């Protein structure tokens, strides 16, 4: 199989709002950073571009047609993936693996602050005859999931609150993060109930920003990059969209289990907790980080909360998780969530993660979930080892 490396990463400034630039100017900023990070690539030298976005979020439809100019992709092969940007990454990777292309871009963005009625966009994604007619805020689905997860695993609301406290604390050391804070379990537990047991602080708040990543064939990576980061494995899976037949998928993130299995197999990983050094894992809701850690086979079901509270997933722990601050600390970047997590893993593997740098890390995991009401996840294994 043709090997593929990440040779450039660019992230725009992030913000809870971004009144100073349009979303296309924001992507342009990330693209310029990415191309300079790759040693000063001109977009003319890039073979193809993959953007990840969803209609309705941009205030326009057929968003794919708006992709080219801000990436330097006018009159080039361009493709859009309606999903998380790590699904876009998988597509960009496959472009290179055809052997026909050497340099391919994956890009994504969030301009969440422009979305006036996000709950309606999510409602529109819910089943139109069994769920939408209830007229409820679709985040109730997360409340149902969390309740079932806590029931099946014996995890507590305090364990979930500790996820929030740790991630927001980690975010204090990430200059890009929007929602860094020093908080504690009591404060999180005391935040307003929204869809109990889900509380206001259990939910990652939205942020604006763009991430652009440049992928290269092995030949091109050796030519360009001082520190290529290799994609060792990738996997993705989607559970049924029907809430009525999700079965095990309510309490367990089955999509994550399957995505990880595929990625681990490709990377030759049999004991993820020991063979992977650290991870950036979806924490759209606090309980999701714990549920995902278990589904990714980092620990057994019902263990994640306890291990978290013992410090296993902190900087000094055996398996650091979300040193970036995660979505709870950085901000929820919609389809760009996955690429941001990937960018964090790349910075760590290059030794460029500043004050959040982990010592001697060789292999990292990025995992993204597509959010309510979906059951889609993508796992990527990256390494700085040859």
């Amino acid at each position, binding site marked *: 199989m043709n090997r593929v490396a990440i040779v450039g990463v660019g992230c725009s400034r992030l913000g809870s709002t971004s*009144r*100073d*630039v349009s979303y296309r*100017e924001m992507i*342009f*900023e990330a693209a*310029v950073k990415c*191309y300079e990070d790759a040693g000063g690539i*001109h977009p003319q030298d890039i073979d193809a571009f993959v953007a990840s976005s969803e209609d309705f979020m941009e*205030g326009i439809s057929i968003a794919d047609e708006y992709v080219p100019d801000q990436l330097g992709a006018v009159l080039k092969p361009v493709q859009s993936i309606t999903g998380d940007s790590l699904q876009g990454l998988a597509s960009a990777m496959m472009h290179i693996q055809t052997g026909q292309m050497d340099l391919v871009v994956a890009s994504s963005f969030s301009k969440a602050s422009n979305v*006036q*009625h996000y*709950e*309606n966009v999510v*409602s529109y994604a819910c089943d*139109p*005859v*069994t*769920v939408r*007619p*209830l*007229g*409820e*805020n*679709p985040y*109730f*689905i997360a*409340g*149902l*999931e*969390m*309740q*079932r997860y806590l*029931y099946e695993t014996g995890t507590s609301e305090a364990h979930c609150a500790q996820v929030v406290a740790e991630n927001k604390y980690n975010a204090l050391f990430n200059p890009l993060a929007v929602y860094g804070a020093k908080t504690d379990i009591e404060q999180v537990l005391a935040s*307003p*109930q*929204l*869809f*109990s*047991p*889900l509380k206001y602080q259990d939910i990652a708040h939205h942020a604006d920003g763009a991430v652009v990543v440049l992928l290269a064939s092995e030949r091109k990576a050796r030519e360009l990059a001082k520190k290529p980061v290799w994609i060792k494995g990738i996997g993705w899976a989607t559970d*049924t969209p*029907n*809430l*009525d*037949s*999700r*079965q095990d998928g*309510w309490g367990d993130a089955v999509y994550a289990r399957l995505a990880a299995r595929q990625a681990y197999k490709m990377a030759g990983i049999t004991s993820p907790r020991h063979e992977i050094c650290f991870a950036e894992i979806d924490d759209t809701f606090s309980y999701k980080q714990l549920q995902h850690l278990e589904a990714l086979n980092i620990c057994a079901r019902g263990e994640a909360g306890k291990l978290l509270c013992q410090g296993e997933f902190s900087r000094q722990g055996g398996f650091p998780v979300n040193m970036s601050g995660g979505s709870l600390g950085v901000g929820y970047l919609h389809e760009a969530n996955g690429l941001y997590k990937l960018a964090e893993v790349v910075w760590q593997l290059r030794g460029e993660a500043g004050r959040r740098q982990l010592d001697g890390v060789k292999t990292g995991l990025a995992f993204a979930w597509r959010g309510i009401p979906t059951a889609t996840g993508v796992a990527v294994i990256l390494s700085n080892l040859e």
Partner: protein
Amino acid sequence: MAFLERSTKNTENRYWYPEENTFPVSNRYTTGVAGQRFFGELKDNARITGTRCHSCQVTFVPARMFCERCFARLDDWLDVGSEGTVFSYTVAYVNRDGSAKPEPAIIAAVRVADGILVHRLLGCNAGEVTIGMKVQAVFRPEAERTGSILDISHFRPV
């Protein structure tokens, strides 16, 4: 290769895509062969129906035309009754638009046969709900039923 300009004053950022330029987008959604029959049964007979896949030993509720697991055609229609058990539940404190509800509402995932119906749970307070609790669908009067999931008014404890 970068732009050198930025807005530096919020008061200067005037040119939004204006609210007045938005327009409603609406559409129809075809419930399909199985949906037509499922919602017809709700409306006409106050009956919840499922279809059984005999090779997977699963009864889908709401009824489907095909099994999502083994891809078989499903034509064994069953009346699955109006009772189920609470599979999960949540207490919603806010409406769709984020405004506070006057009274928190219990929303339950109710297991009926092998399917799950998500619906309101009335007739008990939040502290009384438990996973595994038996509940029953309460139908609207025939004259008010329209062929919608809301023909079930709510679930209540048995």
